[in-house]
């Protein structure tokens, strides 16, 4: 963590910490069709935030725009009060597992070490320090035994944990994670949640694209409901109302009847079935 900027409160320094992520008027379009429309966000530091919305709602696009991987039509992004270029080293990224070719000729350890390349000098090669950081990250994800394995010989959940370990070695203060829970088994999901909570308890901020409304309350502190436009952003218990879910997912009747009741339950924590309020 030695690479944190000298003043974590950001410029201004008026006592109040700058938001971990601030997005203003963000509009992104593919071929004239808007994917994100005039989105404003302000995410305080230290929250574990779920990004929730239907397919095509712009969740991945939001993450990619924040990272500068695509060019928005309009909008401004500030990270800890600074521009992306200034704050780049404080941002970590976990892309969707399906975005790479897992038959690539490399090992688990090499893949995780790639997370250190952002700080590698131009003529330097990854060495012992990088290797040790990668091994430590792998053991935090219960993947140390797989360090020497070719990445194509991993299960989906193991691949997901390799990506998580690669994000960990980035030692970032703001993490953007695109569906880390996609198609993983219960054990892996548990392991990932533990790591996310540990990161949050260290004061890091996490934006996590998530699909399972049932575990929202249990896993996350905050939620961003999004469908092209920002629907709602705030603590899960305040934001997860049936009205907001209807606005997010539209009028799909079967879905609504289930989620509506769950949303209502979330309004009223003591009545929540299964009581997932341990966070």
């Amino acid at each position: 963590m030695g690479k944190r900027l000298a003043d974590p409160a950001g410029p201004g320094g008026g006592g109040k910490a700058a938001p971990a992520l601030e997005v203003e008027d963000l509009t992104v379009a593919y071929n004239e069709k808007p994917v994100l429309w005039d989105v404003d966000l302000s995410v305080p530091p230290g929250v574990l935030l779920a990004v929730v919305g239907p397919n095509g709602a712009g969740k991945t696009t939001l993450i990619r725009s924040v990272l500068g991987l695509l060019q928005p039509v309009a909008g401004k992004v500030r990270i800890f009060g600074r521009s992306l270029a200034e704050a780049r080293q404080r941002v970590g990224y976990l892309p969707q597992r399906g975005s790479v070719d897992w038959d690539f000729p490399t090992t688990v350890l090499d893949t995780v070490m790639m997370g250190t390349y952002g700080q590698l000098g131009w003529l330097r090669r990854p060495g012992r320090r990088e290797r040790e950081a990668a091994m430590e990250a792998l053991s935090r994800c219960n993947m140390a035994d797989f360090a020497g394995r070719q990445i194509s010989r991993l299960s989906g959940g193991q691949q997901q944990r390799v990506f998580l370990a690669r994000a960990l070695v980035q030692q970032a203060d703001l993490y953007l994670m695109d569906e880390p829970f996609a198609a993983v088994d219960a054990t892996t999901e548990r392991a990932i949640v533990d790591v996310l909570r540990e990161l949050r308890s260290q004061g890091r901020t996490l934006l996590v694209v998530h699909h399972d409304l049932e575990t929202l309350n249990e896993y996350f502190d905050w939620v961003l409901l999004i469908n092209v436009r920002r629907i709602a952003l705030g603590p899960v218990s305040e934001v997860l109302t049936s009205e907001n879910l209807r606005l997010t997912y539209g009028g799909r009747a079967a879905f609504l009847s289930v989620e509506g009741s769950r949303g209502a339950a979330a309004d009223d924590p003591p009545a929540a079935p299964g009581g997932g309020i341990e966070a």
Partner: protein
Amino acid sequence: MNSLLAELLGDHTLRTVASGAALLGISSGALGCFAMLRRQSLLGDAISHAALPGVALAFMLTGSKEPLTLLLGAALSGWLGTLLVTRIVRGSRVKLDAALGLVLSVFFGAGLVLLTIIQSRPDARQAGLDKFLFGNASTLLSSDIRAMALLALLALLALLLLWPRLKLLSFDPDFAASLGLPVRWLDLAISTLIVIAIVMGLQTVGVVLMSAMLVAPAAAARQWTDRLASMVLLAGAFGALAGISGALLSARIERLPTGPAIVVIVSLIVFFSLLFAPNRGMVFAWLRSRGQRRQLGQATVLISLLQLAQQHSDPFHPHQLIVPGSLSRQPRRQAAQLVRDGLLEALPDGLYRLTASGLSEARRLSRELLPGEQP
């Protein structure tokens, strides 16, 4: 073999041709790995075809047949073709494959037209430009070899210097960009290196077959290893091997041109690798799946007998072989193998019973393959 070596060392022309082909094979093999892993193998084909009009134009403008001049023209127009492909993909809805096809055929067509125009000129100096179509290694001079060696050295040095970044760029370009690596610049660097490798091969192999020198060694090397570093080394070695043996072959066989000889040999290497490489090879995969089928069949026989025996108080009670047919197509043959392994005992009248070790093996398999089943 010894006489071949003596021939190689003794004959100046052959030595020149062989070292040219080896240099070409090393660099196109090594760089082709990155083209392949980035799913840009066909880019090499487009670049090499796009180089042809550059050769023709360079001659028309300068009137010189100096290889350096012509290859500079080739490099420029090949590079232009690459940029055009990138622009078309980024700036329109045309997909990569269509853009590659478009650039390849338009540039190549233009090159052929220019060659025809050149050849219809009454000037005698024009002869021989068409060697760039299929290559003609026998025209290589020592000075060409020195230039090729320099280019190969520079390209491999650049590869070594950029290694970790190029590896990351090839595996996960988005993540590379998120780290702040200059991906556009790296992209351009690797494309330029590929252009260099292609231009090196134009005299020897020609524009039509050059892409094989990028794709084939890489594809063959991938079969044998799961590490990028060894894949790149191996691809370079395969390229060099094909280059040298192609040169020797065409020296031995009357009127066999070097370029096609090299490409045929590199194709044989690919063919062999696809079939016989351990793990990824087709023969290996076939043997493995056959072995797995056989194991599953034997397990089915054992478990079936265990389940039958469980209907009696005596687990060693003999039984007829009744096995779900779809699971084991040849229960008798598998039973015979199990008898040889000492797991089953064959009794008269087609009856079988488990031996003691057969029983424990059957229980183990049942626990392993049928979780939830009571052993």
